[in-house]
């Protein structure tokens, strides 16, 4: 039976994104605020984050501070990899729950739960499928990722490699390279062009990062290569609409960050109030989004997740509506 939240309890919450200033995290903040209001939490809600150039160290610092402040729960989109594990463990020991969302702690250490936007394994499948449909089933493609340190991107790429190796229907797809644009337009743009030059037969650039996918699409458009090399990956409809309409990036996927923030806040509230223990098998209701069950995270041994899903694949039929 699904646990329901008792509104009006005092839970002090911190939403800690990778860094401030870009759209997806702001959307998550919106969702989190919506949930916090619904829950009528009498505690505080903070949306704080580091600067982009100081992301990993800043997150570690902010998690430590939240522990000192005896916050009840910190909702973390982790950008520090396992480097944050020790601090997260210390937070748990001091009574501050750490719930990750968007990007987990790879080892699962110090993490109560991970609110997964989608199943990481299935992102691998979706990415492979999108390549499949764009190449027509055979050909070379490359990945343009964020940074080599981005845990969620790395997990997705791994998942995709696994799917490619295991499922015979992808046998004619060839992943030729993985490069990193460090989530900077300029670097991503140049890397995308570099891929095209290095692999003349390249058919798809798969960019599982919102910055990378736009930069790659722009690069292909600028070089008039949209017919030859398609771009795909994970992107925001608002930023991708023109490239989808003109065929440079006919297909890409994403989930709702608003919902992710909303669900994360519900989960965190329930966990902090003790309504759920964070054990595998527990089921709870997250407001408008319905019921969710805590399960073992298949990608990370010993870690637990709440799976939001599904995500939307955008193409020229639905992208315009979504970009409004």
């Amino acid at each position, binding site marked *: 039976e699904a646990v329901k939240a008792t509104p009006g309890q005092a839970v002090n919450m911190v939403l800690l994104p990778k860094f*401030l*200033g870009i*759209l997806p995290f702001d959307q998550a903040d919106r969702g989190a605020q919506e949930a916090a209001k619904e829950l009528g939490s009498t505690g505080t809600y903070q949306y704080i984050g580091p600067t982009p150039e100081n992301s990993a160290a800043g997150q570690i610092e902010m998690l430590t501070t939240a522990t000192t402040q005896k916050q009840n729960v910190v909702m973390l989109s982790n950008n520090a990899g396992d480097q944050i594990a020790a601090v997260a463990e210390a937070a748990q020991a001091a009574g501050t729950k750490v719930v990750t969302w968007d990007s987990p702690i790879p080892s699962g250490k110090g993490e109560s739960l991970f609110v997964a936007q989608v199943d990481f394994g299935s992102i691998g499948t979706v990415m492979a499928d999108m390549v499949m449909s764009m190449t027509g089933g055979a050909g070379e493609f490359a990945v343009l990722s964020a940074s080599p340190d981005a845990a969620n991107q790395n997990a997705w790429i791994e998942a995709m490699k696994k799917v490619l190796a295991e499922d015979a229907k992808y046998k004619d797809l060839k992943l030729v390279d993985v490069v990193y644009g460090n*989530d900077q337009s300029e670097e991503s743009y*140049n890397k995308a062009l570099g891929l095209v030059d*290095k692999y003349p037969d390249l058919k798809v650039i798969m960019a599982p990062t919102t*910055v990378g996918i*736009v930069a790659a699409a722009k690069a292909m458009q600028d070089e008039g290569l949209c017919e030859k090399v398609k771009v795909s990956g994970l992107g925001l409809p608002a930023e991708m609409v023109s490239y989808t309409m003109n065929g440079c990036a006919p297909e890409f996927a994403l989930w709702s960050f608003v919902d992710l923030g909303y669900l994360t806040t519900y989960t965190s509230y329930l966990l902090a109030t003790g309504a759920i223990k964070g054990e595998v098998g527990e089921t709870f209701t997250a407001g408008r989004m319905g019921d969710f069950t805590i399960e073992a995270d298949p990608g990370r041994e010993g870690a637990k997740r709440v799976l939001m899903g599904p995500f939307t694949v955008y193409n020229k039929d639905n992208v315009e509506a979504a970009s409004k």
Partner: protein
Amino acid sequence: MHPQTLRILALAAALLATVLFFSTQIDGYLSERMFTRISTSAAVILPIAVGQAIVVITRNIDLSIGSTMGVVAYLTGDYLSGHPELHPVLVLCLAMGIGAGIGAINGILVAWGRVPSIIVTLGTLALLRSFLVEYSDARTITTASLPQWLVDLPQANAFSIFGIDVRVTVVLALASAVVMGLCLSRLRAARRFFAVGSNPDAAVMAGINLPMVTLLAFVLSGALAGLSGFLFLAKFGNITVVAGMGFELKSVAAVVVGGVSILGGSGSMVGVVIGTVLVDTIDNSLTRWELVSEFWRDALLGFLIMAAVTVDTFMSRQLSRLSRKES
């Protein structure tokens, strides 16, 4: 021969060697396409490298130049999304104007506040970025909100020779370098940059208005960062708060490889152009080199820059020794 001329020759030789090396390593390296790639990529950096060079010549440094560029790209894009009908020339003026304004703040603090430039610009580097995060409210400027002429600008050809396309952005960037280069060698007022950087005390004694010259250098550097910001906006279309991050170090790298003395007083725009192109060529070529995996690129880039500077130091030292013997 003049030591500066020798410097340029050494640099040009290094660039030639780099290009020759990569042409043996990468198929189709010496092609029109590669020219377009590298020229358009270097074009975004060139104006800020030129601006940085002017500041460095006056024995200062502008570390806020990347943030300035980001702020300009963002604000210009933001304004354009509300006023798409603005004339292109005015857009360019707007971008350079915002940059110049930021440069003026730096310049005033350095010139009249007597705060060392590294401190001022280290401070404004952070401040401008903070401002942008605060101002942008996490909105992204997208190509969709920009006027079409701007989105098309990066592909616009200025002219073609021997099948090589020279893009408008490249011409704009080069024009900034050429104009500044001519000013620096021909205009009496611009010669003061060198005087001030060479010996600030003597400059004061010689009746040069030191604060004014310093201010001018920063305003120019800001305006040129504005030009870079404009090119950045045109080229990438999507501007977030991280736009231009890390460009301060890129510009310093281009300037020092280009033979501008980091201690002030000497340097040439020809050198800066070659330096910028050299660094960018190495960077762009490494991404295309089969033998090098993604994870080796940074190490190679760093050591190649170092090698270029070391060779340049040895060569220009050797050459100037030779020429001294001749005379």
